Protein backbone atom coordinates (compact mmCIF):
# COMPACT_ATOMS: atom_id res chain seq x y z
CA UNK A 1 0.00 0.00 0.00
CA UNK A 2 1.15 3.52 -0.83
CA UNK A 3 2.33 5.23 2.32
CA UNK A 4 4.08 8.30 0.91
CA UNK A 5 2.01 11.44 1.35
CA UNK A 6 3.10 12.88 -2.00
CA UNK A 7 2.33 9.70 -3.96
CA UNK A 8 -1.03 9.30 -2.22
CA UNK A 9 -2.01 12.82 -3.20
CA UNK A 10 -0.76 12.72 -6.80
CA UNK A 11 -1.90 9.21 -7.88
CA UNK A 12 -5.71 9.79 -7.66
CA UNK A 13 -5.44 13.11 -9.49
CA UNK A 14 -3.16 11.66 -12.18
CA UNK A 15 -5.39 8.60 -12.54
CA UNK A 16 -8.57 10.66 -12.89
CA UNK A 17 -7.06 13.01 -15.46
CA UNK A 18 -5.51 10.17 -17.46
CA UNK A 19 -8.68 8.09 -17.43
CA UNK A 20 -10.96 10.95 -18.41
CA UNK A 21 -8.67 12.26 -21.16
CA UNK A 22 -8.42 8.75 -22.65
CA UNK A 23 -12.20 8.26 -22.37
CA UNK A 24 -12.84 11.66 -23.96
CA UNK A 25 -10.44 10.93 -26.83
CA UNK A 26 -11.98 7.49 -27.46
CA UNK A 27 -15.53 8.86 -27.50
CA UNK A 28 -14.46 11.78 -29.69
CA UNK A 29 -12.83 9.29 -32.05
CA UNK A 30 -16.07 7.25 -32.14
CA UNK A 31 -18.05 10.40 -33.03
CA UNK A 32 -15.51 11.32 -35.71
CA UNK A 33 -15.47 7.80 -37.15
CA UNK A 34 -19.29 7.68 -37.35
CA UNK A 35 -19.43 11.12 -38.99
CA UNK A 36 -16.69 10.27 -41.49
CA UNK A 37 -18.30 6.90 -42.31
CA UNK A 38 -21.69 8.53 -42.84
CA UNK A 39 -20.14 11.24 -44.99
CA UNK A 40 -18.28 8.63 -47.03
CA UNK A 41 -21.45 6.57 -47.40
CA UNK A 42 -23.43 9.59 -48.61
CA UNK A 43 -20.75 10.28 -51.24
CA UNK A 44 -20.87 6.65 -52.34
CA UNK A 45 -24.65 6.67 -52.58
CA UNK A 46 -24.42 9.80 -54.70
CA UNK A 47 -21.98 7.99 -56.95
CA UNK A 48 -24.38 5.02 -57.22
CA UNK A 49 -27.21 7.40 -58.12
CA UNK A 50 -25.02 9.08 -60.75
CA UNK A 51 -24.27 5.68 -62.32
CA UNK A 52 -27.99 4.88 -62.24
CA UNK A 53 -28.88 8.15 -63.95
CA UNK A 54 -26.15 7.63 -66.56
CA UNK A 55 -27.27 4.04 -67.21
CA UNK A 56 -30.95 4.96 -67.43
CA UNK A 57 -30.77 6.51 -70.90
CA UNK A 58 -28.78 3.61 -72.35
CA UNK A 59 -31.24 1.12 -70.84
CA UNK A 60 -34.18 3.09 -72.18
CA UNK A 61 -32.67 3.11 -75.67
CA UNK A 62 -31.67 -0.54 -75.36
CA UNK A 63 -28.07 0.43 -76.16
CA UNK A 64 -26.39 -2.57 -74.55
CA UNK A 65 -22.93 -1.89 -76.04
CA UNK A 66 -22.86 1.63 -74.60
CA UNK A 67 -24.09 0.39 -71.22
CA UNK A 68 -21.48 -2.39 -71.10
CA UNK A 69 -18.73 0.08 -71.97
CA UNK A 70 -19.92 2.55 -69.37
CA UNK A 71 -19.95 -0.16 -66.67
CA UNK A 72 -16.42 -1.21 -67.67
CA UNK A 73 -15.11 2.38 -67.64
CA UNK A 74 -16.59 3.18 -64.23
CA UNK A 75 -15.37 -0.18 -62.87
CA UNK A 76 -11.80 0.76 -63.81
CA UNK A 77 -11.90 3.89 -61.65
CA UNK A 78 -9.66 3.88 -58.60
CA UNK A 79 -11.58 2.86 -55.52
CA UNK A 80 -14.36 1.01 -57.39
CA UNK A 81 -13.97 -2.68 -56.60
CA UNK A 82 -16.95 -4.00 -58.54
CA UNK A 83 -19.92 -2.78 -60.57
CA UNK A 84 -22.72 -5.08 -61.73
CA UNK A 85 -26.23 -4.81 -63.06
CA UNK A 86 -28.57 -7.73 -62.33
CA UNK A 87 -31.50 -8.55 -64.55
CA UNK A 88 -34.49 -9.60 -62.49
CA UNK A 89 -36.12 -11.50 -65.34
CA UNK A 90 -33.13 -13.70 -66.22
CA UNK A 91 -31.81 -13.77 -62.61
CA UNK A 92 -28.26 -13.31 -63.92
CA UNK A 93 -25.60 -10.61 -63.97
CA UNK A 94 -26.17 -8.85 -67.28
CA UNK A 95 -23.44 -6.22 -67.12
CA UNK A 96 -20.30 -6.20 -65.01
CA UNK A 97 -16.95 -4.42 -64.84
CA UNK A 98 -15.46 -7.92 -64.57
CA UNK A 99 -16.26 -9.68 -67.90
CA UNK A 100 -16.04 -13.15 -66.29
CA UNK A 101 -19.08 -12.38 -64.12
CA UNK A 102 -21.42 -11.65 -67.05
CA UNK A 103 -24.11 -14.30 -67.35
CA UNK A 104 -23.49 -15.86 -63.94
CA UNK A 105 -26.61 -16.58 -61.89
CA UNK A 106 -27.67 -14.40 -58.98
CA UNK A 107 -27.31 -15.71 -55.43
CA UNK A 108 -30.18 -14.29 -53.37
CA UNK A 109 -28.48 -15.16 -50.10
CA UNK A 110 -25.39 -13.11 -51.01
CA UNK A 111 -24.56 -9.95 -49.02
CA UNK A 112 -26.19 -7.41 -51.34
CA UNK A 113 -29.44 -9.40 -51.90
CA UNK A 114 -30.36 -10.64 -48.44
CA UNK A 115 -31.59 -7.21 -47.28
CA UNK A 116 -34.58 -7.42 -49.68
CA UNK A 117 -34.93 -11.20 -49.92
CA UNK A 118 -35.30 -12.06 -46.24
CA UNK A 119 -39.07 -12.65 -46.26
CA UNK A 120 -41.38 -14.44 -48.67
CA UNK A 121 -42.10 -11.21 -50.57
CA UNK A 122 -38.99 -9.24 -51.56
CA UNK A 123 -38.83 -5.62 -50.49
CA UNK A 124 -38.99 -3.06 -53.28
CA UNK A 125 -37.44 -0.10 -51.51
CA UNK A 126 -34.56 0.28 -49.06
CA UNK A 127 -33.51 3.14 -46.80
CA UNK A 128 -30.16 4.81 -47.58
CA UNK A 129 -28.38 2.96 -44.75
CA UNK A 130 -29.93 -0.39 -45.65
CA UNK A 131 -28.59 -0.10 -49.20
CA UNK A 132 -25.03 -0.23 -47.87
CA UNK A 133 -23.17 -3.25 -46.52
CA UNK A 134 -19.66 -3.50 -45.13
CA UNK A 135 -17.47 -6.52 -45.83
CA UNK A 136 -13.85 -7.57 -46.29
CA UNK A 137 -12.43 -8.60 -49.64
CA UNK A 138 -10.16 -11.61 -50.21
CA UNK A 139 -7.12 -9.57 -49.12
CA UNK A 140 -8.90 -8.58 -45.90
CA UNK A 141 -9.47 -4.94 -46.89
CA UNK A 142 -12.71 -3.24 -45.87
CA UNK A 143 -15.17 -2.42 -48.64
CA UNK A 144 -18.66 -1.00 -48.81
CA UNK A 145 -21.21 -2.39 -51.22
CA UNK A 146 -24.27 -0.41 -52.28
CA UNK A 147 -27.22 -2.12 -53.90
CA UNK A 148 -29.77 0.13 -55.58
CA UNK A 149 -32.98 -1.30 -57.07
CA UNK A 150 -33.68 -0.22 -60.69
CA UNK A 151 -37.32 0.87 -60.63
CA UNK A 152 -39.72 0.31 -63.49
CA UNK A 153 -40.46 3.91 -64.44
CA UNK A 154 -43.32 4.94 -66.62
CA UNK A 155 -41.06 5.57 -69.63
CA UNK A 156 -39.69 2.00 -69.26
CA UNK A 157 -43.07 0.30 -69.31
CA UNK A 158 -44.49 2.54 -72.04
CA UNK A 159 -41.46 2.57 -74.34
CA UNK A 160 -41.97 1.09 -77.79
CA UNK A 161 -38.60 -0.66 -77.95
CA UNK A 162 -38.74 -3.22 -75.13
CA UNK A 163 -41.69 -2.41 -72.96
CA UNK A 164 -41.85 -3.94 -69.51
CA UNK A 165 -45.07 -4.85 -67.89
CA UNK A 166 -46.31 -1.89 -65.86
CA UNK A 167 -47.06 -4.29 -62.96
CA UNK A 168 -43.35 -4.95 -62.46
CA UNK A 169 -42.02 -2.63 -59.77
CA UNK A 170 -38.33 -3.51 -60.01
CA UNK A 171 -36.45 -4.41 -63.19
CA UNK A 172 -33.16 -5.35 -61.61
CA UNK A 173 -30.48 -4.01 -59.29
CA UNK A 174 -27.27 -2.09 -59.59
CA UNK A 175 -24.54 -3.26 -57.24
CA UNK A 176 -21.44 -1.13 -56.75
CA UNK A 177 -18.52 -1.92 -54.44
CA UNK A 178 -16.15 0.75 -53.21
CA UNK A 179 -12.91 0.48 -51.30
CA UNK A 180 -12.82 1.97 -47.79
CA UNK A 181 -9.06 2.33 -47.92
CA UNK A 182 -9.04 6.17 -48.13
CA UNK A 183 -11.38 6.33 -45.14
CA UNK A 184 -9.24 3.85 -43.18
CA UNK A 185 -6.12 5.87 -43.96
CA UNK A 186 -7.83 9.08 -42.77
CA UNK A 187 -8.99 7.34 -39.58
CA UNK A 188 -5.49 5.96 -38.95
CA UNK A 189 -4.06 9.48 -39.29
CA UNK A 190 -6.75 10.82 -36.90
CA UNK A 191 -5.89 8.06 -34.39
CA UNK A 192 -2.18 8.99 -34.42
CA UNK A 193 -2.89 12.71 -34.15
CA UNK A 194 -5.31 12.09 -31.29
CA UNK A 195 -2.86 9.84 -29.43
CA UNK A 196 -0.11 12.48 -29.70
CA UNK A 197 -2.51 15.21 -28.59
CA UNK A 198 -3.74 13.03 -25.72
CA UNK A 199 -0.15 12.39 -24.60
CA UNK A 200 0.66 16.10 -24.70
CA UNK A 201 -2.41 16.96 -22.61
CA UNK A 202 -1.52 14.25 -20.09
CA UNK A 203 2.09 15.36 -19.75
CA UNK A 204 1.04 18.97 -19.38
CA UNK A 205 -1.83 18.43 -16.93
CA UNK A 206 -0.28 15.70 -14.75
CA UNK A 207 3.14 17.36 -14.88
CA UNK A 208 1.59 20.74 -14.07
CA UNK A 209 -0.50 19.44 -11.17
CA UNK A 210 2.44 17.42 -9.79
CA UNK A 211 4.84 20.37 -10.10
CA UNK A 212 2.42 22.76 -8.40
CA UNK A 213 1.67 20.28 -5.61
CA UNK A 214 5.36 19.58 -5.16
CA UNK A 215 6.40 23.23 -5.14
CA UNK A 216 3.59 24.52 -2.92
CA UNK A 217 2.77 21.58 -0.64
CA UNK A 218 5.19 18.66 -0.55
CA UNK A 219 8.49 20.55 -0.63
CA UNK A 220 7.51 22.89 2.28
CA UNK A 221 6.22 19.87 4.25
CA UNK A 222 9.47 18.02 3.60
CA UNK A 223 11.45 21.07 4.74
CA UNK A 224 9.22 21.31 7.78
CA UNK A 225 9.87 17.67 8.68
CA UNK A 226 13.64 18.19 8.29
CA UNK A 227 13.43 21.38 10.33
CA UNK A 228 11.47 19.63 13.10
CA UNK A 229 14.09 16.87 13.26
CA UNK A 230 17.00 19.29 13.30
CA UNK A 231 15.30 21.63 15.75
CA UNK A 232 15.18 18.90 18.35
CA UNK A 233 18.98 18.79 18.18
CA UNK A 234 19.84 22.42 17.44
CA UNK A 235 17.19 25.07 18.15
CA UNK A 236 19.39 27.83 16.70
CA UNK A 237 18.66 26.66 13.11
CA UNK A 238 17.27 29.15 10.62
CA UNK A 239 13.67 29.54 9.52
CA UNK A 240 13.12 27.53 6.31
CA UNK A 241 9.76 29.08 5.44
CA UNK A 242 10.33 32.80 5.35
CA UNK A 243 7.45 34.42 3.50
CA UNK A 244 4.91 31.60 3.89
CA UNK A 245 2.44 32.67 6.53
CA UNK A 246 0.93 29.30 7.55
CA UNK A 247 4.20 27.46 7.65
CA UNK A 248 5.94 30.31 9.48
CA UNK A 249 3.32 29.95 12.20
CA UNK A 250 3.99 26.19 12.44
CA UNK A 251 7.77 26.82 12.52
CA UNK A 252 7.29 29.43 15.25
CA UNK A 253 5.18 27.03 17.31
CA UNK A 254 7.69 24.22 16.84
CA UNK A 255 10.56 26.48 17.93
CA UNK A 256 8.65 27.67 20.97
CA UNK A 257 7.73 24.11 21.90
CA UNK A 258 11.31 22.92 21.47
CA UNK A 259 12.59 25.79 23.63
CA UNK A 260 10.02 25.10 26.36
CA UNK A 261 10.96 21.44 26.38
CA UNK A 262 14.64 22.30 26.44
CA UNK A 263 14.42 24.93 29.21
CA UNK A 264 14.31 22.59 32.23
CA UNK A 265 17.11 20.48 30.74
CA UNK A 266 19.25 23.57 30.14
CA UNK A 267 18.44 24.85 33.62
CA UNK A 268 19.37 21.48 35.11
CA UNK A 269 22.55 21.35 33.07
CA UNK A 270 23.37 24.91 34.15
CA UNK A 271 22.83 24.05 37.79
CA UNK A 272 25.08 21.04 37.43
CA UNK A 273 27.74 23.19 35.82
CA UNK A 274 27.33 25.87 38.54
CA UNK A 275 27.82 23.20 41.08
CA UNK A 276 30.98 22.06 39.36
CA UNK A 277 32.08 25.68 38.90
CA UNK A 278 31.97 25.79 35.08
CA UNK A 279 29.49 26.50 32.27
CA UNK A 280 27.24 29.03 34.00
CA UNK A 281 27.99 31.58 31.33
CA UNK A 282 27.14 29.08 28.58
CA UNK A 283 23.80 28.23 30.15
CA UNK A 284 22.87 31.87 30.55
CA UNK A 285 23.85 32.60 26.98
CA UNK A 286 21.75 29.69 25.72
CA UNK A 287 18.69 30.82 27.68
CA UNK A 288 19.14 34.33 26.36
CA UNK A 289 19.34 32.98 22.85
Amino acid at each position, binding site marked *: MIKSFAVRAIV*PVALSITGFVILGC*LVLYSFLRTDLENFSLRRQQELADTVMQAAHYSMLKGDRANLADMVRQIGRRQGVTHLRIFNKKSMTITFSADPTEVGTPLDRTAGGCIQCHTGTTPRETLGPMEQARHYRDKQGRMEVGITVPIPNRQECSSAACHAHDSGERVLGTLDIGLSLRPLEETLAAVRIEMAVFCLMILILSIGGVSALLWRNVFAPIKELVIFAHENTRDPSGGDPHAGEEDLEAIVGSLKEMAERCREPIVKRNGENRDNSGTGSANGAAYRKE
Partner: protein
Amino acid sequence: VTVFQPDDTGGQAPRFPDGVVARTERLRQESLRNIRRLERLGVQSRLTLILFMAASAGAMFHGLVLPTFPHDLQAHLGPPPPLGLIHLGLILYGFSALVLTLARYTKGEGKLHGWSHLGFLLSFYFFYYYAGELEGSFWSVFSAGLTILVLENLRMANFCREELQKEKQKMAGLKDG
Protein backbone atom coordinates in the same frame (compact mmCIF):
# COMPACT_ATOMS: atom_id res chain seq x y z
CA VAL B 1 -16.44 5.43 34.30
CA THR B 2 -15.30 2.59 36.49
CA VAL B 3 -11.99 3.42 38.15
CA PHE B 4 -9.42 0.72 38.40
CA GLN B 5 -8.66 -0.17 42.00
CA PRO B 6 -5.90 -2.68 42.60
CA ASP B 7 -6.73 -5.05 45.36
CA ASP B 8 -4.29 -6.32 47.90
CA THR B 9 -3.43 -9.65 46.43
CA GLY B 10 0.14 -9.48 47.51
CA GLY B 11 2.07 -9.76 44.22
CA GLN B 12 -0.61 -11.64 42.27
CA ALA B 13 -1.98 -10.34 38.94
CA PRO B 14 -4.33 -7.35 39.46
CA ARG B 15 -8.02 -8.22 39.39
CA PHE B 16 -10.42 -5.90 37.60
CA PRO B 17 -13.99 -5.31 38.66
CA ASP B 18 -16.53 -7.26 36.58
CA GLY B 19 -17.93 -4.09 34.98
CA VAL B 20 -14.52 -3.09 33.60
CA VAL B 21 -13.85 -6.58 32.24
CA ALA B 22 -17.25 -6.67 30.53
CA ARG B 23 -16.75 -3.24 29.02
CA THR B 24 -13.25 -4.07 27.80
CA GLU B 25 -14.53 -7.31 26.31
CA ARG B 26 -17.40 -5.48 24.64
CA LEU B 27 -15.00 -2.93 23.14
CA ARG B 28 -12.67 -5.72 22.01
CA GLN B 29 -15.56 -7.54 20.32
CA GLU B 30 -16.67 -4.30 18.69
CA SER B 31 -13.17 -3.70 17.38
CA LEU B 32 -12.99 -7.26 16.05
CA ARG B 33 -16.34 -6.79 14.33
CA ASN B 34 -15.11 -3.54 12.79
CA ILE B 35 -11.91 -5.19 11.61
CA ARG B 36 -13.88 -8.00 9.97
CA ARG B 37 -16.25 -5.45 8.36
CA LEU B 38 -13.30 -3.45 6.99
CA GLU B 39 -11.68 -6.60 5.63
CA ARG B 40 -14.96 -7.55 3.94
CA LEU B 41 -15.21 -4.05 2.44
CA GLY B 42 -11.70 -4.39 1.02
CA VAL B 43 -12.54 -7.79 -0.50
CA GLN B 44 -15.82 -6.49 -1.98
CA SER B 45 -14.04 -3.50 -3.47
CA ARG B 46 -11.49 -5.75 -5.17
CA LEU B 47 -14.28 -8.10 -6.27
CA THR B 48 -16.04 -5.32 -8.24
CA LEU B 49 -12.82 -4.72 -10.18
CA ILE B 50 -12.34 -8.45 -10.85
CA LEU B 51 -15.96 -8.82 -12.02
CA PHE B 52 -15.59 -5.80 -14.28
CA MET B 53 -12.44 -7.26 -15.83
CA ALA B 54 -14.26 -10.59 -16.39
CA ALA B 55 -17.25 -8.79 -17.97
CA SER B 56 -14.86 -6.77 -20.14
CA ALA B 57 -13.18 -9.95 -21.36
CA GLY B 58 -16.65 -11.25 -22.26
CA ALA B 59 -17.50 -7.99 -24.03
CA MET B 60 -14.20 -7.99 -25.93
CA PHE B 61 -14.84 -11.47 -27.29
CA HIS B 62 -18.61 -11.02 -27.44
CA GLY B 63 -18.72 -12.70 -30.82
CA LEU B 64 -17.57 -15.93 -29.19
CA VAL B 65 -19.27 -15.60 -25.81
CA LEU B 66 -22.62 -13.95 -26.58
CA PRO B 67 -25.18 -15.11 -29.14
CA THR B 68 -26.43 -12.68 -31.78
CA PHE B 69 -29.31 -10.67 -30.39
CA PRO B 70 -32.59 -12.46 -31.29
CA HIS B 71 -34.60 -10.49 -33.86
CA ASP B 72 -37.90 -11.21 -32.07
CA LEU B 73 -36.62 -9.80 -28.81
CA GLN B 74 -35.10 -6.82 -30.63
CA ALA B 75 -38.45 -6.16 -32.34
CA HIS B 76 -40.17 -6.39 -28.95
CA LEU B 77 -37.71 -4.03 -27.26
CA GLY B 78 -37.70 -1.50 -30.09
CA PRO B 79 -34.83 0.33 -31.76
CA PRO B 80 -31.66 1.02 -29.76
CA PRO B 81 -30.98 4.58 -28.56
CA PRO B 82 -28.90 6.71 -30.96
CA LEU B 83 -25.20 6.03 -30.69
CA GLY B 84 -24.43 9.69 -30.02
CA LEU B 85 -26.74 9.59 -27.01
CA ILE B 86 -24.96 6.53 -25.55
CA HIS B 87 -21.59 8.25 -26.06
CA LEU B 88 -22.91 11.38 -24.37
CA GLY B 89 -24.26 9.29 -21.48
CA LEU B 90 -20.90 7.59 -21.05
CA ILE B 91 -19.01 10.89 -21.01
CA LEU B 92 -21.42 12.43 -18.47
CA TYR B 93 -21.34 9.31 -16.31
CA GLY B 94 -17.52 9.11 -16.45
CA PHE B 95 -17.12 12.77 -15.53
CA SER B 96 -19.61 12.75 -12.65
CA ALA B 97 -18.33 9.40 -11.31
CA LEU B 98 -14.74 10.66 -11.23
CA VAL B 99 -15.70 13.95 -9.59
CA LEU B 100 -17.82 12.16 -6.97
CA THR B 101 -15.15 9.54 -6.27
CA LEU B 102 -12.51 12.25 -5.82
CA ALA B 103 -14.87 14.16 -3.49
CA ARG B 104 -15.44 10.97 -1.45
CA TYR B 105 -11.68 10.39 -1.41
CA THR B 106 -11.16 13.88 -0.01
CA LYS B 107 -13.90 13.48 2.60
CA GLY B 108 -12.64 10.04 3.62
CA GLU B 109 -16.08 8.46 3.15
CA GLY B 110 -16.20 4.73 3.81
CA LYS B 111 -19.27 3.64 1.84
CA LEU B 112 -18.57 1.25 -1.04
CA HIS B 113 -19.91 2.48 -4.38
CA GLY B 114 -18.22 -0.14 -6.56
CA TRP B 115 -21.38 -2.21 -7.11
CA SER B 116 -23.38 0.68 -8.52
CA HIS B 117 -20.47 1.60 -10.81
CA LEU B 118 -20.32 -2.01 -11.98
CA GLY B 119 -24.06 -1.87 -12.75
CA PHE B 120 -23.68 1.34 -14.78
CA LEU B 121 -20.71 0.01 -16.72
CA LEU B 122 -22.41 -3.28 -17.57
CA SER B 123 -25.44 -1.29 -18.74
CA PHE B 124 -23.19 0.66 -21.12
CA TYR B 125 -21.75 -2.59 -22.46
CA PHE B 126 -25.32 -3.83 -22.98
CA PHE B 127 -26.45 -0.64 -24.76
CA TYR B 128 -23.49 -0.75 -27.13
CA TYR B 129 -24.11 -4.45 -27.74
CA TYR B 130 -27.79 -3.77 -28.45
CA ALA B 131 -26.88 -0.92 -30.81
CA GLY B 132 -24.40 -3.24 -32.57
CA GLU B 133 -21.47 -1.00 -31.73
CA LEU B 134 -19.77 -2.93 -28.93
CA GLU B 135 -16.71 -3.67 -31.04
CA GLY B 136 -16.15 -0.01 -31.89
CA SER B 137 -16.89 1.37 -28.43
CA PHE B 138 -15.45 -1.34 -26.20
CA TRP B 139 -12.30 0.62 -25.29
CA SER B 140 -14.32 3.70 -24.29
CA VAL B 141 -16.32 1.76 -21.68
CA PHE B 142 -13.26 -0.22 -20.61
CA SER B 143 -11.10 2.86 -20.02
CA ALA B 144 -13.92 4.60 -18.13
CA GLY B 145 -14.60 1.52 -15.99
CA LEU B 146 -10.96 0.82 -15.25
CA THR B 147 -10.29 4.41 -14.17
CA ILE B 148 -13.38 4.68 -11.99
CA LEU B 149 -13.02 1.29 -10.34
CA VAL B 150 -9.25 1.61 -9.74
CA LEU B 151 -9.85 5.02 -8.15
CA GLU B 152 -12.70 3.56 -6.08
CA ASN B 153 -10.41 0.70 -5.01
CA LEU B 154 -7.67 3.13 -4.08
CA ARG B 155 -10.14 5.16 -2.02
CA MET B 156 -11.47 2.08 -0.24
CA ALA B 157 -7.97 0.69 0.35
CA ASN B 158 -6.88 3.97 1.93
CA PHE B 159 -10.03 4.17 4.04
CA CYS B 160 -9.70 0.55 5.21
CA ARG B 161 -5.98 0.96 5.99
CA GLU B 162 -6.62 4.06 8.12
CA GLU B 163 -9.60 2.53 9.92
CA LEU B 164 -7.77 -0.76 10.51
CA GLN B 165 -4.87 1.17 11.99
CA LYS B 166 -7.28 2.96 14.35
CA GLU B 167 -8.92 -0.32 15.37
CA LYS B 168 -5.55 -1.96 15.98
CA GLN B 169 -4.48 0.98 18.14
CA LYS B 170 -7.74 0.68 20.05
CA MET B 171 -7.14 -3.05 20.55
CA ALA B 172 -3.58 -2.39 21.71
CA GLY B 173 -4.92 0.21 24.15
CA LEU B 174 -7.40 -2.31 25.55
CA LYS B 175 -4.68 -4.90 25.89
CA ASP B 176 -2.43 -2.50 27.80
CA GLY B 177 -5.21 -1.94 30.24
